[in-house]
């Protein structure tokens, strides 16, 4: 069954970021495997009711991360991607972002144990499927 992509136009997160984030979850989780073709920029823009440049930007961003192959005249295709070796700075930056997110969850009243569980489950979910 085809995967579903959802965006919220009332969200403060830019639509391009939402598309990239949603697709990345599907790519990391293995729901979109190597060789899978994605809908054309025109089709996706029409279905979502958004600008085609927004979709094109999202595809370009994912291509720059090494997830997609964009060749002129054919649809975007998922490709095999070698995992980059994370630098110490990158790890520090991600930790900081994760910390901020966890702090937001705790501030929203979510118990410590549940935050830890959620993070563990998400990591397991993403790595098990791939």
């Amino acid at each position, binding site marked *: 069954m085809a995967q579903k*992509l959802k965006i919220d*136009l009332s969200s403060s997160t830019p639509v391009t970021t939402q598309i990239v984030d949603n697709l990345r979850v599907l790519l990391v989780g293995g729901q979109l495997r190597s060789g899978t073709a994605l809908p054309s920029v025109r089709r996706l*823009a*029409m*279905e*979502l*009711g958004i600008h085609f440049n927004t979709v094109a930007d999202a595809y370009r961003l994912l291509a720059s991360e090494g997830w997609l192959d964009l060749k002129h005249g054919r649809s975007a295709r998922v490709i095999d991607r070698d995992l980059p070796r994370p630098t110490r700075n990158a790890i520090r930056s991600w930790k900081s972002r994760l910390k901020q997110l966890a702090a937001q969850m705790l501030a929203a009243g979510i118990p410590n144990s549940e935050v830890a569980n959620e993070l563990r489950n998400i990591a397991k979910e993403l790595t098990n499927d791939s």
Partner: protein
Amino acid sequence: MILRVLSLIPFLMAATVLLFAPVLSPRRIFFAVRVQPDFRSTEPARRALRQYQLAVAAIALIGLLWTFARPENPSAGLIPQVLLFVGAIIFWLRNYRALVKYQMNPPTVAGVELTTEPDRLPRFFWVSMIPPVILAGTALYLYLHWSSIPAQYPIHWGPGGQPNGWATRSLRGVYGPLLFAALWMAWLIGMAFAIWYGARRSPLRTAVAKIMIAVEFLFGIIWPVVSLLPLYRPNAALLVMVILGGVAGLIVYSLVTFRRAASVAGEEVIPAASAGSSFFDRQNPAILLPRADGLGYCPNLAHPVAWLLLLYPFAIVIIAMIFIF
């Protein structure tokens, strides 16, 4: 007298459609206002419907009385129709203004399946080729029976049944109606294709394309019959009944198809970038966008095909006035 009674049928059909129009729309749309699906059972909704239907019924009754009491002036016969439509629009707008405070915000979440499945034309699109074939067949029949066509024949009749418009046996007179129908058919098929390839995938898209092709079929029945009138003079009452029956059938089919599609479409996510009555966005690839109130489509005026579809009917009217009729 029979013709006068027959002339009442379109009026009664229009009155019936207008009377029930508010309840024929999808449940989430009421007087063109996007509401909660159970809004119709609330007191403000019931009051609005009652007032509207009473007003339309009263205007229709006045129109009926006028039809039987009017003087023998053909243009006077149009007064009830005009009165009915103007009255219905006024009361509709009045209710729209009263109910707009209950309007819900359109959904802002849009969803799409990540499929590369191409847009294959459904089978009903191939059926759209039948009406042009009927036209071509009629043209061939007229060509083969050319000598049987009278040199001059009536093409229009007054309310008393007396002919008041004539045509001659010429290319323009004989094939003109068929050409007129062919031009409209091209537009209807073009609209169906534009909806299919230029709008988002949804049950509404299928329904509207089907309705376009149904209208094309009606043209494919009415205009060949009109074109064959010089050869055959069927009973006028029967002819009017067939035409009105076709129109009534089309109205019922359109309402049922649209309502069924709209009720399905209501459950799925609607793109937030849906439009009002006009829309202009160069970066949006859609030719037609679903209207925010759920009542069909509106053109994206930044798309040249949308302009073509909008201007083409005017071109048909001009061509018909200069070259055909």
